[in-house]
């Protein structure tokens, strides 16, 4: 059973979103997703300043056998990316909700998070996997 923190929002495509206040959110991929991918060997993050929209492939996570797109769960502008992943992609495996974050986005619309799943909703969504 994978870890699904209660205080985060989730997309069905396995991204999590944490509200940081002031219209800023932090985004990463769920514990369930990292477990399914296995040991990550590379993460491609977007450029700071890039505009992202919901459903856009904005990052890529690679294991030795698979490459998966990370889809933006929100609309907005990328204000920071996790540079540490360049040398240590395994941070996503060890701390998917902490040091393994992928990017921070300034939201275009603060109410946009309402469409995302809560922890319970995400748990149900992955129960069928």
């Amino acid at each position, binding site marked *: 059973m994978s870890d699904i923190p209660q205080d985060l929002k989730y997309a069905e495509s396995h991204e999590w979103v944490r509200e940081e206040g002031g219209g800023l959110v932090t985004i990463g991929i769920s514990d369930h997703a990292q477990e399914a991918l296995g040991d990550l*060997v*590379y993460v*491609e993050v977007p*450029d700071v300043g890039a505009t992202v929209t919901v459903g856009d492939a904005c990052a890529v996570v*690679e*294991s*030795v*056998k*698979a*490459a998966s797109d990370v889809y933006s769960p929100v609309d907005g502008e990328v204000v920071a990316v996790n540079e540490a992943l360049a040398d240590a992609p395994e941070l996503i495996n060890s701390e998917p909700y902490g040091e393994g974050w992928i990017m921070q986005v300034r939201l275009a619309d603060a109410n946009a998070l309402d469409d995302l799943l809560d922890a319970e909703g995400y748990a149900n969504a992955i129960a069928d996997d």
Partner: protein
Amino acid sequence: MPFIPHTDTDVEQMLGAIGASSVEALFDEIPAALRCGRLDRVPERMTEMEITRLMHERADADGRPLNFIGAGAYEHHVPAAVWEIVTRGEFYSAYTPYQAEASQGTLQVIYEFQTMMCGLTGLDVSNASLYDGATALAEALLMAVRANRKSKSHRILMPRSVSPVYRQVVHAICAAQQLKLVELDYDPATGATPEAALAEHAGSDIAAVVIPHPNFFGCFEAVDSMTDWAHANGALAVAVVNPIALALTRAPGEWGEQGVDICCGEGQPLGSPLSSGGPYFGFMTCKQALVRQLPGRIVGRTLDMDGKPGFALTLQAREQHIRRGKATSNICTNQGLLVTAATIHMSILGPVGLQQVARASMANTRKLVAALTELPGIEPVFTGAGFHEAVLRFDQPVRPLVDALGERGVIGGYALEGVYPELTNCLLVCATETKTDADIDTYVQTLAALMRPASAA
């Protein structure tokens, strides 16, 4: 039945195990209307003895003329050991090394090859090969466009002194991905790309600049200033090189202030026979920072479960079998056997051997040019220094001469006017280390007898 081991008893037992009445029944899922009949245009079979005779007859018909032509494929001595080993079944009939534990031989060869190509080109990472030099350049430019995130234009500065066929291949492969080739003319006096041709594009959005070394005319370009110009203008520097020339000249990784970003080229001079144009192999090396954009297979050294070193394909998530529509290239099969040949070839020649081959080829071409230009009506076209090819202008049409030489067992060179209309009556000639003084004399005497006296021109 050629190459099929089954006895009648085998077939009977096997059909019994399957529960099928006949071999034909195994095809009962194919709609009857689609089944094909007799293949009328396929001839009856030949035994090995018969086909051997036929192939010898055809080979004999073509003979073994004296080659003074290069233009992208160069005749060099290949040590006998190279192809004796390459055609061992263990290399020849193995597949791509996906099962690493059962393919350590192939994998280690590729790792050694990568090391040698990085050494020759002065760059950090090499792939395991591409199809040939022309497609390697196409892939290098697609890679440059992916890697140069600052440039949005997809514009490539392409000297006209790059092989015309390479430029055609780049166009055929890259046009659908919106690459735009901007041609740079060469200096009609030196045969190299003048600084002014680049300067015209200063300040515009350029993804990459191609730097041939030597160029199609055999001339050396101003590689340092072209590399620096590219970097000063936000473009990647992409070298397309003859690996034999690198034995004597500065490595592309050391050109200009920062070195080129990507280097590619035709690997044929490293152990592939001329063989009508293939199989050869393309090579590509690049700076470490660009490795994720490098197309094709890469072998890495790692450890096994017991901590023992071994080799495996790595960074496969860039490739089509994992990345599918988002892969760096659609390339799958490459030119592994030719890479094996090149690795053995480079090992046997070593640094001294490769340098001697390069020096002898340069010296022989100088001799050939000197001897030919002693004939009335033949002049060198370019003043710039070159490697082992040169362009000569005749006072009469060269195509009839080339044909007539061919009938007399001399392949005299490559007529340039078809691809460079301004180079009327010009011939690109080459003499590698394989040519003796007597060979050069044969060429000169045969040509002298064919040329029309200047007075009649």
